[in-house]
């Protein structure tokens, strides 16, 4: 039961927010995070086309041996990715709350430019309160 990190990927595949919450995964450089986000964006686009039964919203959970990543795709194409331990049951509901905070603290903030890195202080604070702040590394 641990939350490792949160990514927000814009509709073009760029990483607009990245933050770590607890140790357990290898720490990457900012450049590596950007590459990972772009790769995930591509994989997600492929998975959404693989469905044998018509249209699909793409990958929702990707599990590894030590962690899983839960992906929430919004109607506007923004993706929220939560990296948690395998046993974590609350990832989906947490992502919904992250989406809500995103809608409040970034979309209603006149000083935020859509599709650009999120530098809103209130977003940082509220995400920290929700997911438990330890080590932060906003983009």
């Amino acid at each position, binding site marked *: 039961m641990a939350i490792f990190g949160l990514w927000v990927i814009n509709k073009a595949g760029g990483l607009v927010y990245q933050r770590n919450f607890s140790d357990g995964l290898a720490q990457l450089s900012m450049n590596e995070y950007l590459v990972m986000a772009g790769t995930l964006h591509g994989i997600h686009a492929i998975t959404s086309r693989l469905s044998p039964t018509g249209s699909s919203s793409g990958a929702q959970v990707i599990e590894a041996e030590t962690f899983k990543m839960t992906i929430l795709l919004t109607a506007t194409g923004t993706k929220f990715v939560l990296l948690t331990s395998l046993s974590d049951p609350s990832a989906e509901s947490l992502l919904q709350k992250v989406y809500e905070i995103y809608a409040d603290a970034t*979309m209603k903030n006149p*000083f935020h430019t859509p599709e650009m890195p999120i*530098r809103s202080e*209130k977003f940082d604070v509220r995400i920290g309160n929700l997911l438990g702040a330890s080590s932060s590394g906003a983009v």
Partner: protein
Amino acid sequence: MTSFPQAHPRLSVLSSTSHASTDNFSPSSSYSRFSLSSAPSISTAIGAGKLGSRPNIYDRSLSKTRTSDVSLSAFAFLFSEIVQYTQKRVNGINDLERRLNVLGYRIGTRVLELMIWRNESVSKAPKREIRFLPALMSIHTQVWRAVFGKPADAIEKSVENEDEYMIIDNDPPITRHISVPRDMSQLSCSSLTAGIVEAVLDGLGFPARVTAHNTPIDGFPARTTILIKLDKSVLEREEILK
């Protein structure tokens, strides 16, 4: 006593829009020559109130306060766009705050009119405040309740300057989702509120200069002070009325 200017100079800045209907200028004979039969005519849609089941906003009762609340989210998006629009057209923070103040002023004149209108129909002895402190109290409670749905949190009087009063809101709803970047940290988007207060004071006959300032304290990071600097004439009159 003091004479007040007929129209506030700032009113003329933005009030050049004309709402005159264009219907009168288009004689029916010209329709055959210039008509665009496929284009929907705006005047028929609005003028006759044929919009269907939803009542026209102008036909709604002005005295019903409970059903006239607007969504805070919708307003937050609108206000965000207003700030972005304004920011593109100004030089510097002072200019931005002044423009927001002017927009608020235009809201405030309407708020005052509406509040007096509502008061007439509700209260048995409707009253116009002529002393400053009761007027300030009514702004603190009634204007705030009409605009934000809750009274403001405190009124303070400046210790240093006797012409300065402050209305304090610990968490202004209109700036709840706004994070001002660090390089603009003096900016307070509550300048809109300051404009509302200025218009109400002006309308009641207390000319003043009203500004908004961020005054965060522990527990209330969004605490905002609306600073009222009264015109000298107001203080002189208060002295006479004592």
